[in-house]
């Protein structure tokens, strides 16, 4: 609400057009599961494939949003956000495993198959409570949040920034990957969790369950977007930008930079965890591969491509890079990693503001 924000007519129109476009995008996303219900021969019919892949991409978009809040605004380039996503996914996976009940191969009423196979006699203490969905969802936020709090506190307090912080987060996700590969961790080792049966009493393979998960993901995306908007539009958002651009100057103004960075890093990890929790039932599997450092880097590239420092840009990036990936890994699977690397280089060189920069026609370096 600064004096210069009195919009000129052109800027006002551009903003209106942008908002209409955004509403149209949200509406068409919301329509997908409805169109899926149409008869298969209808021109507007949307296949099951599109709905399930759409739901998956929406959770990716939430992850991108979380990364953008930390990186695009506060300048915290985490190369380990995939770990928060995966931890949220594991929390949901534990819930889904508990719901399998006697339908497992061994038919044990309490223990998941892999525990019976490994000779567990009873459920480890940290599995208690996961039979309840609200508890599992809570853990999908709390566990990533706590991890971010610990890592963030140690790093930010010691004023570790930039590439050093990126390396630490990368090491964090790699260490978690190695840990989750171990059978004696009690998380299914390298097989992870799969063969889920149901959620909320709905068999997972039905159109109904797909639609519910899809809408839950869309709701999470909208709520996260509103929350991030609220933050970035507030003075806190401007403090974060200030920290991003001149961290030590912010300290001399009396702001406790560690507190602000921790706040946004923990919040970002919690959002990423929730995204992971909705991702797992839609893809039907979670294993330690989700912790692989490459996943986190890929998610950062979505944000870079879409436009870091723009919330809509992050979402746009997640959708467009994944669309490209889906297409390219079908047509020419060997080319994907080259394309991803090339895309990152090209965006850095030619589109520093990302795809969203094209829409807004701004040339801010």
């Amino acid at each position, binding site marked *: 609400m600064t004096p210069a924000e009195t919009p000129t007519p052109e800027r006002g129109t551009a903003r209106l057009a942008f908002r209409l476009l955004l509403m149209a995008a949200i509406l068409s996303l919301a329509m997908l599961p409805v169109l899926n219900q149409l008869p298969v021969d209808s021109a507007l019919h949307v296949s099951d494939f599109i709905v399930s892949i759409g739901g998956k991409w929406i959770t990716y978009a939430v992850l991108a949003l979380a990364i953008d809040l930390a990186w695009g605004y506060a300048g915290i380039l985490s190369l380990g956000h995939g770990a928060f996503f995966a931890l949220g996914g594991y929390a949901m996976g534990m819930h889904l495993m508990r719901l399998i009940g006697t339908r497992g191969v061994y038919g044990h009423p309490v223990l998941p198959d892999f525990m019976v196979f490994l000779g567990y006699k009873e459920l480890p203490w940290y599995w208690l409570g996961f039979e309840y969905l609200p508890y599992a969802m809570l853990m999908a936020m709390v566990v990533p949040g706590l991890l971010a709090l610990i890592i963030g506190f140690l790093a930010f307090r010691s004023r570790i920034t930039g590439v050093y912080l990126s390396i630490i987060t990368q090491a964090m996700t790699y260490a978690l990957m190695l840990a989750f590969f171990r059978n004696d961790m009690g998380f299914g080792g390298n097989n992870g969790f799969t063969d889920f049966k149901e959620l909320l009493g709905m068999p997972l393979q039905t159109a109904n369950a797909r639609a519910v998960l899809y809408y839950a993901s869309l709701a999470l995306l909208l709520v996260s977007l509103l929350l991030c908007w609220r933050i970035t539009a507030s003075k806190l958002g*401007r*403090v974060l930008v200030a920290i991003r*651009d001149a961290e030590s*100057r912010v300290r*001399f*103004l009396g702001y*406790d930079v560690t507190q602000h960075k921790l*706040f946004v890093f923990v919040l970002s990890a919690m959002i990423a965890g929730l995204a992971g929790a909705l991702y797992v039932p839609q893809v039907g599997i979670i294993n330690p591969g989700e912790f692989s450092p490459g996943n986190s880097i890929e998610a950062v590239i979505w944000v870079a491509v879409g436009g870091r420092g723009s919330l809509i840009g992050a979402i746009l990036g997640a959708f467009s890079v994944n669309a490209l990936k889906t297409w390219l890994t079908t047509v020419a699977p060997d080319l994907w990693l080259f394309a991803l690397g090339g895309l990152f280089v090209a965006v850095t060189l030619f589109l520093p503001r990302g795809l969203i920069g094209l829409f807004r026609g701004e040339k801010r370096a």
Partner: protein
Amino acid sequence: MSGGAGNPILYLDGVSVVFDGFRALNDLSLIVEAGELRAIIGPNGAGKTTMMDVITGKTRPSTGMVRFREHDLTRLDEAAIATLGIGRKFQKPTMFDALTAFENLELACKAPRGPLACLRWVLSPATRRRIEGVAEEIGLTSRLGDRAGVLSHGQRQWLEIGMLLMQDPELLLVDEPVAGMTDQETEHTAALLRRIAGERSVVVVEHDLEFVRALGCKVTVLCEGAMLSEGSIDHVQNDPRVIEVYLGR
């Protein structure tokens, strides 16, 4: 104005800073009274900026005592020291280029600094008027909506002084405020600093002796990390030691 058994607000005693064997400050002692305006001059490398760093918590002294009122500054970090009421303007104007001049002033405005307080912050009409008042004082009224990154060097100097005013500190540390300013702007700055002092203490580090003369205050000359001379501008300009190491060159 000068010295005596007044009401010291800033007190440095026997402060030394050693970087890898190099003594940037060497047993420096300095007292600034409440409401005093003080100029610090000295050749390059005399330790002026290091002294500012020590006071604002950027650098820890190897030995010595630094007190602001009753607080021991050597135990506090930058943010805590700023919150106590010490504001600093940097030699190279430093602000947030992606934000507008208005937003820069708003961030500096004295208010609760925690993340949640910032999230809930609402710009009150009184604060807006205050920002506009400061903007008028620093001549940036018409540039409030522009990003700080596009302002000229002189305007950036002004903006940073404005941010200092918004912080409402008891002690202002001002490092080379008139570098890159025109003569007229320099005069205006001197008048502004003279007006601010009185209510607050102001310590100005400057190379420009004309400007220091215009401040009309007690001058401390630093050399090789220690105090060389102290007194009125005429006194220090006639001090043979000062002439030898600084003015005479």
